[in-house]
């Protein structure tokens, strides 16, 4: 194995090994567990940085492990993989910190943090997967490792949500398995990063390839929560806040969307997919999800549920951007992968803080809450304004590129969808902000007895402030050389050619 390959394996091991050790530690040993968790996260971040520096220097990391002829596990560091793995790793570090604070008193932490670590290993595995089989392997493992987290509370609702989650994701996984096997029969093993892959397959398979495309979208769409496959996501809200953050920003939905990007960019190739007229149905599906998700969010009074529906809508932006088939729109979609993650995780951290500190779960209870928890609500407001698309925040950049891309591709209706969606975003997020900042408190909060010098425990407060800062930073510094936008432009430049 070469050194570069070793680096990729180390990136996976840096969270797998702590996870396994945590399982072996007794429940009471909190300090070693926290040390392992944070140590693993920091180490992973450093390794990822090393990888990115390597990529900037024009190096290519790869490692392969042959199971059988035709079945090969491969890890690969193309720029898209680097984008997703960096996002996951950064957010994981913050989420771990948050989870340590959040679960300070609760039982069964050993299991929680064990699975938590393994879950991130698997997510980064998805990011780094170098071919379709490796992707499938990690994609299926992600289902398994997130399930114990979803049912962590062990209540009836949690178990029911876990069941729904499994039904959706397992069925999606089965469809995906068939699709991958079928494609392999038609075209041999599918490697990522060597697009356009399918152009080499003879034209006589076109019919099958069209069917396959929709099977892939169905398989990935479950995790990506595309309407009508989104049913599990709002229900999974019973899980603890760090898990919601994980589901919505770091791992699960991102894995689904990332898969769709891989299918469109690396397996079919934009030109080829557009040639088969596959992208229009995909963008219609995405548009439906955008509008429907927002409409559902409007109806919800439960804060976390509203945010969950908002995820359904926001994720579809990414799919929309990829499916509009123009470089500008693709930039908008891909960069939203990062921006949505930052904004959504901020919102969920804040929602968790409100629930953990004040016992507030409903939007109708949030009037005047900003006076009690100004820092939390400031972070929340930044996240929410970003979602709506106020300049100069992250969401604005995404929407700007999406809109420009749609115009460039001559698709006015996409611009209309974006406008409607922005209005809807404002309609379900602004009232929360107005209530929190400007209305007087009109009900008593069942304080949860958190004693801290600040408005809540520092471990709960730091992560949302950092992510809120990042939301502003990636917007303001979008043109800097190290911003996600610059990185995404590099990726799209490779896909669409110079």
């Amino acid at each position, binding site marked *: 194995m070469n050194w570069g390959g070793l680096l990729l394996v180390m990136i996976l091991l840096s969270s797998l090994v702590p996870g396994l050790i945590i399982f072996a530690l007794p429940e009471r040993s909190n300090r070693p567990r926290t040390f392992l968790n944070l140590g693993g996260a920091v180490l992973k971040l450093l390794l990822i940085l090393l990888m990115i520096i390597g990529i900037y220097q024009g190096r290519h990391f790869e490692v392969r*492990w*042959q*199971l*059988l002829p*035709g*079945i090969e*596990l491969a890890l690969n560091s193309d720029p898209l993989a680097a984008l997703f793995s960096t996002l996951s790793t950064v957010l994981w570090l913050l989420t771990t910190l948050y989870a340590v604070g959040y679960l300070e008193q609760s*039982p*069964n932490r050993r*299991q929680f943090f064990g699975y938590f670590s393994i879950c991130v290993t698997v997510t980064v595995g998805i990011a780094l997967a170098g071919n379709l089989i490796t992707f*499938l*392997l990690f994609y*299926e*493992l992600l289902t*398994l490792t997130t*399930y*114990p987290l979803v*049912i*962590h509370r*062990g209540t009836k609702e949690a*178990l029911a949500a*876990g*069941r729904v989650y*499994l039904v959706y994701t*397992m*069925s999606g996984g*089965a469809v995906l*398995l*068939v699709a991958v*096997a*079928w494609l*392999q*029969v038609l075209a041999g093993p599918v490697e990522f990063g060597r697009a356009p892959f399918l152009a080499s397959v003879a034209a006589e398979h076109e019919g099958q390839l069209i069917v396959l495309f929709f099977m892939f979208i169905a398989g990935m769409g479950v995790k990506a929560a595309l309407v009508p496959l989104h049913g599990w996501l709002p229900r999974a809200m019973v899980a603890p806040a760090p898990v919601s953050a994980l589901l919505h920003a770091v791992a699960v939905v991102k894995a689904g969307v990332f898969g769709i990007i891989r299918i469109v960019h690396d397996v079919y190739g934009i030109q080829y997919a557009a040639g088969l007229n596959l992208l229009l149905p995909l963008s219609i599906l995405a548009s439906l999800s955008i509008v429907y998700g927002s409409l559902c969010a409007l109806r919800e009074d439960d804060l976390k549920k509203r945010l969950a529906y908002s995820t359904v809508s926001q994720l579809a932006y990414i799919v929309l951007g990829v499916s509009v088939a123009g470089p500008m729109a693709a930039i908008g979609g891909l960069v939203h992968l990062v921006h949505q993650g930052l904004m959504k995780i901020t919102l969920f951290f804040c929602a968790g803080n409100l629930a953990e500190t004040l016992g507030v779960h409903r939007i109708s209870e949030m009037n005047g809450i900003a006076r009690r928890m100004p820092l939390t609500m400031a972070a929340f407001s930044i996240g929410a304004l970003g979602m709506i698309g106020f300049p100069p925040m992250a969401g604005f950049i995404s929407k700007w590129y999406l809109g420009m891309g749609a115009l460039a591709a001559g698709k006015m209706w996409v611009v209309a969808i974006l406008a409607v969606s922005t209005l809807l975003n404002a309609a379900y997020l602004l009232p929360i902000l107005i209530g929190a900042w400007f209305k007087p408190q009109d009900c008593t909060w069942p304080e949860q007895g958190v004693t801290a010098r600040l408005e809540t425990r520092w471990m709960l407060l730091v992560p949302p402030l950092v992510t809120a800062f990042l939301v502003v930073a990636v917007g303001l510094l979008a043109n800097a050389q190290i911003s996600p936008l610059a990185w995404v432009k590099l990726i799209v430049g490779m896909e669409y050619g110079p």
Partner: protein
Amino acid sequence: MPDTAFWAVCLVVVPLFFAIICFVRSSLVAVLGPMAAWLNAFAALGMTFSFVHSGPIRYAIGGWQAPLGINFSIDGLSVLLIAMTAVTGLAVSMYAIGYFSLRIGSAREISRHEHQRAYFWPLWLLLWAALNGLFLSADLFNIYVTLEITGLSAVVLTALSGKAAARLAAMRYLLVSLLGSCSYLFGVALLYRTYGTLDMTVLSRLISPAPLMWVSLALLTTGLLLKTALFPLHFWLPPAHANALAPVSAILSGLVVKASLYLMLRLWGDVFAPVLPLSAYVLPGALGCGAVLWGAGQALLQKRLKMLVAYSTVAQLGYMFIALPLIRLDAGSSAWEAVIFLIMSHACAKSAMFMAAGSIFLKAGHDRIDDLDGIKEVLPVTSFAFVVAGVSLMGFPPSGGFIGKWLLLGVSLSSGQWWWGIMLVIGSLLAACYVYRVACHLLVFKAPFYSRREFIPPVMEWSALLLAVLAMILGLFAGYPLGLLEAGGPFPAQACLEVMP
């Protein structure tokens, strides 16, 4: 250095010898039994290495040739199954040490445990010797003898628990097993009458479509299907496997059914393959589909853990029969490889599951699935082992089951008969459903869990986990066993080449 033949003879003689000693000197079983298990595993290891070194052989014991003597034919398939038996058998043996050393309940119960141990070891070693002999034998009559010994010792092992339900199940098992053996023996006699030989390699060259051949094939197949418990002949299996003692259940489900299955594969995949039309393979395939659906459906309805695991065996056996038509269709050897992966991975996973279920039963005092919430607080390793084993039964990557499913799916899609592949996927979704039924109780946190005070020895927990993890990561190391299969050369690859028109 001893050669393959030496190790092969050891693999039969050593367990047989120890079985006899254990039987006459029952005071020594606690020492001799485990010792024999280790020796067996060592011999299997020795044979594997020597096989890798020198390739497949045929060996006539004592130099006596076919009609009188006993011939061994050792190829990749034999070696893999011997190795599988050794690994699973060793883990079960370790588990059994812990299991029979438990001191539970009244003085009477303890003395019953002693009694059970005194019979378990000789019978299990006898069974092991017979299994090894079966996988090594070259001709169908020797196989009959080993099959019969396997069946009889399995029946007695089933009855060992002494409960009324177990005795009834064992009785039924005995009748089925005898019926199956009879049918098989008639088939063998007819073959001998027609071709004058029972050596499988020779037979596969001589075989020609003739009325007597068809009758004999029907008899052989019926006998083997009865013993393998393929749907709808599975009725005896769930009660027998569920009511036996935990280590016995693990042996029965993990290994014993594989003996007749192996023979079925040899006959349908190799010996009779040149004359059988493709349409003939639809029958086992269709029955396999039935088994997958029925077994999984029944598993979903069970209230008791061990019954659920037993029905899961019915379903999983169906999988391996779905592979039969695909073996016939496949131009290469990937369907063969797939079915071998399914067998090996099922042996590990299912034994682990029964071992875990046994520990859970002992600790909780019952095995009602719905009342197991929180058991992971008292048996964390065991609960985890059960879930991991379940995941590998579902065919999740990177388990051996996944490799098997993947290869079969590929064959079925490329050969145009995609429905077999779809059936496999449906089967694994159903497996996911019944595993989930248990897993959601095993994973959930609930304190405090009421349990008996008995201490489950760590060896019982860890042997189950080890097997489960082995089943789970088998896929990552798929290259090695398949290398063995190909190094063995003649068997699958060439047989399939002959089959091809």
